[in-house]
């Protein structure tokens, strides 16, 4: 009789316990929210890569996903809305030994922070940017975002969203990111592997994680959390190296997942050192 279940609280030895600020758990994310799973995958990747965790830091902006920095037991920075990437840029340039991971949401990174995203990708800042895309502004109660599907209902688009969303991997690719991938929280193993790869890779890496927001987005669009996860299972297709033009998120057709870009070019710091510093 080898297997058994242990339910006593005394066994709080979750494999990621050493990386979470357990004195701040439970986190603020709602039941069924995908951020916790994406965050967990990120922590597994940080831990699994064999890199020096003392030199690893997380920077977040504002919003539900922006709270991630507050739960990781490493040097962590919860900055202003949209400004995680420029803050992280200063952190990395200030100490190039650091592995800097930006963990934030779609509203933070692509609406208010959109300009910073494209410029960090363009200059190939050595950052790993993880965006939990839950298709709306969760923290403020479910308003339309730059990622909200056309005609979807939110508190600011009660008749349906008249606008169209960004294709984030396409934007990242066009801006010059050297690593681009997309997964859903259901594909947590692939997600973890890609984050691990992105951290160890130099240059600007971007990983989009589709995750449900059952309370604010799902409820208004008649989608229960389990139904969202079913969509992730049935309406997605894995196609590595897919054409970035084909990567829009539309669950009426198949949503393409995978690793889309993995290339090398000089990072911002390498290029600065080579161009601006005199040889010793």
């Amino acid at each position: 009789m080898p297997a058994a279940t242990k339910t006593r609280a005394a066994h709080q030895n979750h494999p990621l316990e050493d990386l979470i600020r357990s004195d701040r758990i439970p986190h603020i994310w709602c039941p069924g929210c995908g951020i916790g799973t994406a965050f967990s995958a990120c922590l597994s990747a940080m831990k699994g890569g064999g890199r020096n965790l003392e030199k690893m830091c997380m920077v977040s902006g504002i919003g539900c996903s922006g709270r991630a920095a507050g739960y990781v037991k490493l040097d962590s920075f919860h900055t202003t809305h949209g400004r995680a990437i420029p803050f992280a840029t200063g952190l990395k340039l200030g100490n190039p030994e650091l592995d800097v991971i930006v963990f934030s949401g779609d509203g933070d990174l692509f609406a208010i922070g959109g300009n910073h995203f494209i410029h960090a990708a363009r200059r190939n800042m050595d950052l790993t940017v993880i965006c939990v895309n839950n298709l709306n502004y969760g923290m403020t109660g479910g308003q339309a975002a730059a990622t909200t599907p056309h005609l979807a209902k939110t508190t600011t688009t009660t008749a349906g969203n008249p606008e169209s969303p960004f294709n984030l991997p396409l934007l990242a690719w066009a801006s010059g990111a050297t690593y681009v991938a997309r997964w859903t929280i259901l594909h947590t193993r692939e997600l973890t592997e890609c984050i691990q790869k992105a951290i160890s890779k130099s240059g600007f890496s971007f990983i989009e994680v589709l995750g449900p927001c059952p309370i604010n987005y799902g409820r208004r669009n008649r989608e229960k959390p389990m139904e969202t996860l079913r969509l992730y299972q049935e309406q997605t297709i894995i196609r590595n190296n897919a054409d970035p033009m084909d990567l829009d998120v539309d669950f009426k057709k198949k949503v393409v997942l995978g690793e889309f870009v993995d290339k090398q070019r000089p990072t911002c710091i390498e290029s600065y050192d080579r161009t601006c510093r005199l040889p010793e």
Partner: protein
Amino acid sequence: MEFWRVPFDSEAIEVSRGIVYIIEDRCKGCGYCIEFCPKSILAFSSRFNKKGYHPPELLDHDICVNCHYCEIICPEFAIYSLPAPLEKTG
């Protein structure tokens, strides 16, 4: 373990076994672990945790294969599995 078609190396491969640990009071009852357990060995319990959710419980103690999927899909750090001591077969 039952097979639909017996793999040639089924004798040589040791099927991993796991012990599932549930930190009940962290659970917010999303049910992802229950729904996506490949062995379908989890279910909502009838108990309430201190937050008022029904945490999962194990239906069948013996068939966890220690795949960790419950652990990695859980948004709450509330469930995980560890390898069980090897079964002495003979």
